[in-house]
């Protein structure tokens, strides 16, 4: 499944711009600059408008065996605490994100959610624009994947659906392997404002194992800035990893064959933000609380693991 992320630029506590804004850029005179802009333009055109009706329960149901094979046989997935998710109504599921552009935690959780609550329960996931515009990944929309933007998130929650967001997005998913047991949202807090505005509970979803599916070396933030990928594609990283079958893998744009690392996911009790933090809560306080709560859970999951990959 795809790399996802809530909208929001690191550290500013604001929700982000909805999509690539090619028109804001000044034309670059160089050949490379023009080529990049042309490519960005193509990508922007391919980003589909969010249509919640594209989610297809029958399609998901027919794909459950495939997901089950990947989750059970390859990743030996284990999902705990699904009973903590409210049985009905809108809910914001907030996860830490791992595994590069091939995100096993999303695969395992999507299967678990759909089998536990049934494919009939609306369940959407936010994904990076680039993921949805990639050729061949259009089927993700049938799973309920929509482009990460505040508008789409609100639309999903207002329809009464469960919405899975990964605030860390591309920033967290490409963190180096030695930071694999660290929750790192990069200061993105837009999801909290979203939950408060829509008055929906937050359910933290903590996963471990995804960052062991390849050797992630660096996010390549400097390189991404140099190539202006952040402005053209909302990409703040150009990751470097060692992964199958490529060997050295720059960008991870074509994905990779993930190592069969054991994925364990723990779903924590739902948090009613206003009940816990008052009628006019401090977003920064909620952010610190959520990150520390998820980090403690991740530490506990890490303590259970004896060996990387094997679990």
């Amino acid at each position, binding site marked *: 499944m795809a790399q996802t992320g809530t909208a929001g630029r690191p550290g500013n506590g604001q929700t982000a711009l909805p999509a690539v804004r090619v028109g804001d850029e000044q034309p670059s005179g160089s050949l490379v600059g023009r080529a990049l802009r042309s490519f960005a333009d193509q990508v922007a055109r391919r980003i589909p408008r969010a249509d919640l009706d594209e989610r297809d329960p029958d399609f998901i149901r027919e794909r459950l065996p495939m997901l089950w094979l990947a989750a059970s*046989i390859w990743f030996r997935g284990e999902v705990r605490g699904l009973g903590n998710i409210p049985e009905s109504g809108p809910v914001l599921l907030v996860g830490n994100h791992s595994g590069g552009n091939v995100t096993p935690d999303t695969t395992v959780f999507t299967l678990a959610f759909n089998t536990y609550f049934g494919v009939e329960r609306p369940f959407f996931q936010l994904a990076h624009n680039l993921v949805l515009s990639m050729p061949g990944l259009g089927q993700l929309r049938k799973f309920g994947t929509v482009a990460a933007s505040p508008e789409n998130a609100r639309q999903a929650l207002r329809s009464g659906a469960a919405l899975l967001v990964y605030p860390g997005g591309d920033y967290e998913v490409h963190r180096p392997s030695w930071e694999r047991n660290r929750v790192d949202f990069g200061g993105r807090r837009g999801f909290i404002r979203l939950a408060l505005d829509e008055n929906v509970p937050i359910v933290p979803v903590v996963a471990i194992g995804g960052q062991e599916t390849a050797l992630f070396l660096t996010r390549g933030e400097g390189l991404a800035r140099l190539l202006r990928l952040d402005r053209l594609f909302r990409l703040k990283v150009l990751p470097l990893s060692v992964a199958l079958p490529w060997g050295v893998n720059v960008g991870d744009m074509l994905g990779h064959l993930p190592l069969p690392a054991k994925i364990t996911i723990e779903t924590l009790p739902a948090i009613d933000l206003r009940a816990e933090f008052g009628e006019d809560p401090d977003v920064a306080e909620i952010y610190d609380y959520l990150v520390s709560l998820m980090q403690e859970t991740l530490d506990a999951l890490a303590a259970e693991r004896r060996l990387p990959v094997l679990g």
Partner: protein
Amino acid sequence: MRTSACIEVAAPIEEVWKIVSDPGRALSFMSGVTRWEVASENATGLGARYRMLLRVGSAEIGGLIEVVEWDEPSDYAWTSVTGVDQRGRFRLRRMRGGGTRVEMRLAYGVAGSGPFGWIAEQMAAPTVRGHLRRTVQQLKRLVEYEQLRERAAARRAAAGI
């Protein structure tokens, strides 16, 4: 994919039926079942609905099921309304000597899932078969233990203890 398991229980069919047909006791003997909740006005009988989940691999699989056959005290069958396709049955038969032969059957799959569905069914079969075997074994233990306790209680009552 259809799997089944059977066992002989040293107890009258009515005693076995009492436990098998009680949704409140499902979790006490059904292996791998993590949820078996009544989802209809009538808790038992034809048309009763339950929300059930069975752990298979990394997922809890199940959904809403409905009782489609209720022939007391010998047959009790259900079929899925939502979720993965399934048909299940408890088949109880009287044996000579007062015992009961219990057979549990479960057929499952996802229609339209193609070759991945077939592979997944094969891969899941050992787990499901194991759950069925443990279920009938646990049912036997539960019923026979209750019989033992009842007989002991009757002896104590007769002895005036």
